[in-house]
């Protein structure tokens, strides 16, 4: 059965082309900067300071197109050696990296070197272990980075906790994530597509609660976080199900 769910923002258009008998769907993502549309499901390329790790930018076109046109960027990478003022002066990610036909998706966590540090996260901001030490990122600071970098899409700041925290801590993480979601939306620059962060650890109820709250906000997509932090592979499908049950039309999640 096909459905014509679609969403528009100034930088991004997404439409579902086909559904499976279950929940899987094939879609297409149009980004203004990319000459060809991107088929979904799609894998993002990891980057370090915006450039793919071991392939230089002039060799990027040798990768299969268009699936290799979506790059994941961690704003935290730029805290080492490059000020936001300078990045703004240069003109943002596209100008700085010389990659004009590629789309950037900004998420603080890169799952390699910039990892959420739940014990140090507090009501003021999210803590991350990074190569430049432990950093506490407040929503306002995060939004400054997003405004300088100008990615096509970006996830709001989340409190990601490992699977073994107490129920109380897990619930707090959802409350904080929703609060920060509103703060980020309030400060969002024009031109980028906001992906609301959904957390909730290993609790089906919390996952569902978070998803419902985020779905009430005016966002262009959903970033499902908090995976790869101690839950088992078996738990994951149920947790994802709890999130997608609200019939959210477009999601991107990260392990």
């Amino acid at each position: 059965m096909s459905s014509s769910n679609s969403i528009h923002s100034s930088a991004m258009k997404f439409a579902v082309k086909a559904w499976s008998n279950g929940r899987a769907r094939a879609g297409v993502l149009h980004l203004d900067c990319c000459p060809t549309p991107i088929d979904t499901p799609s894998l993002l390329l990891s980057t370090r300071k915006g450039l793919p790790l071991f392939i230089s930018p002039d060799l990027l076109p040798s990768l299969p197109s268009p699936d290799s046109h979506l790059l994941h960027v961690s704003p935290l990478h730029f805290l080492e050696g490059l000020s936001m003022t300078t990045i703004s002066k240069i003109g943002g990610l596209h100008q700085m990296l010389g990659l004009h036909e590629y789309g950037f998706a900004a998420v603080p966590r890169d799952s390699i070197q910039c990892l959420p540090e739940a014990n140090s996260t507090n009501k003021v901001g999210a803590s991350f272990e990074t190569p430049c030490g432990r950093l506490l990122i407040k929503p306002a600071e995060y939004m400054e980075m997003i405004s300088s970098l100008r990615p096509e899409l970006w996830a709001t700041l989340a409190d990601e906790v490992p699977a073994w925290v107490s129920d109380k801590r897990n619930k707090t993480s959802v409350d904080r994530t929703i609060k920060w979601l509103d703060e980020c939306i309030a400060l969002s620059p024009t031109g980028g597509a906001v992906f609301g962060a959904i957390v909730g650890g290993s609790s089906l109820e919390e996952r569902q609660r978070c998803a419902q709250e985020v779905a009430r906000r005016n966002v262009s997509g959903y970033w499902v976080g908090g995976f790869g932090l101690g839950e088992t592979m078996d738990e994951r499908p149920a947790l994802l199900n709890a999130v997608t049950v609200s019939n959210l039309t477009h999601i991107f999640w990260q392990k």
Partner: protein
Amino acid sequence: MALRFEVLGRFNRARAAHLTLPHFVCETPLFMPVGTQGTIKGLTTNQLEEIGCQIILGNTYHLALRPTSELIDELGGLHKFMNWPRAMLTDSGGFQMVSLLHLADITEKGVTFQSPVDGKPMLLTPEESIQIQNRIGADIIMALDDVVRTIITGPRIEEAMYRTLRWIDRCIAAHKRPHEQNLFGIVQGGLDPVLRDICVRGLVDRNLPGYAIGGLAGGEDKDSFWRVVAQCTAALPEDKPRYVMGVGYPLDIVVCSALGADMYDCVYPTRTARFGTALVPEGLLKLKNRAMSDDTRPIDPACACMVCKNYTRAYIHSLVTKDAMGSQLLSYHNLYYMMQLSRNLHSSIVQGRFPEFVCNFLQKMVCISLSLSSCH
């Protein structure tokens, strides 16, 4: 002989030529990047072609250890192994042996050393060096010479020079592929003009396809360095290529070209890139410097390479010494710079504007220190 050397233009002693090798027709003067272990660190062979690289160097010593010359031969030679379609040169292995291995001992037989793999005693003879190079399959191969640093004085220099002449005959005898690979002799003799002269004559008598000037680029003062190059280029045959080994700095290449040399190699451009230093017309740009952190200009506004067309100094500054991409981008720029320098040398000589080019080049380099010691 498997090469042709055709001079297209001259200015005084400088000459621009076509050097036709089995795998590629090269334009000289030219710089050869060093691809120690069958790769130029930080660049693919596609990128090397794109920036105009004509010949690259492979190190016999490193390749013989890993993955061994027999394997390379089995897989069709180094060109196929590393997917490089243009020209290649291998050195004899002698230099690394002496510079990398503290316990190397040079005798008439060859160079004895301790294998870095298992500590067993090993011997590299002229015959063995040529056999390894025959298996690797480069367009130009180098004779095993007895290399002595120019900072050493005394009878050792004379001994090394005469031994080099005795060894060249053994190299020639051992060379099984003279119609596909060109064996170059290497002029030794330290800083002594008499010894250098004897060596040049001895090598020229053997009528080799080309000649290298060795034993320099190791710490001698600049005046001595240029004097030796000048003497050798004056005495070597006009109609054969001259290769100054281990050079190097852009200034040295310009001066040696003015003195009549044609080919150069050095790890300097890529090695200095890995330390965060870019080669620019004014000399060196240290990207690690804090002043670079908010400099939104390209490394060199006049450079047409991919790095200068796309990246600011500020961005490269954030990468250097911390992220591999920093080394890759700087290596790319530095090699592009050296290829452009080679092209400029060739074309300015051919077009009759070599002196203007040299003056312009020197004028831009206002702050360089002439006492820089060359790399090895």
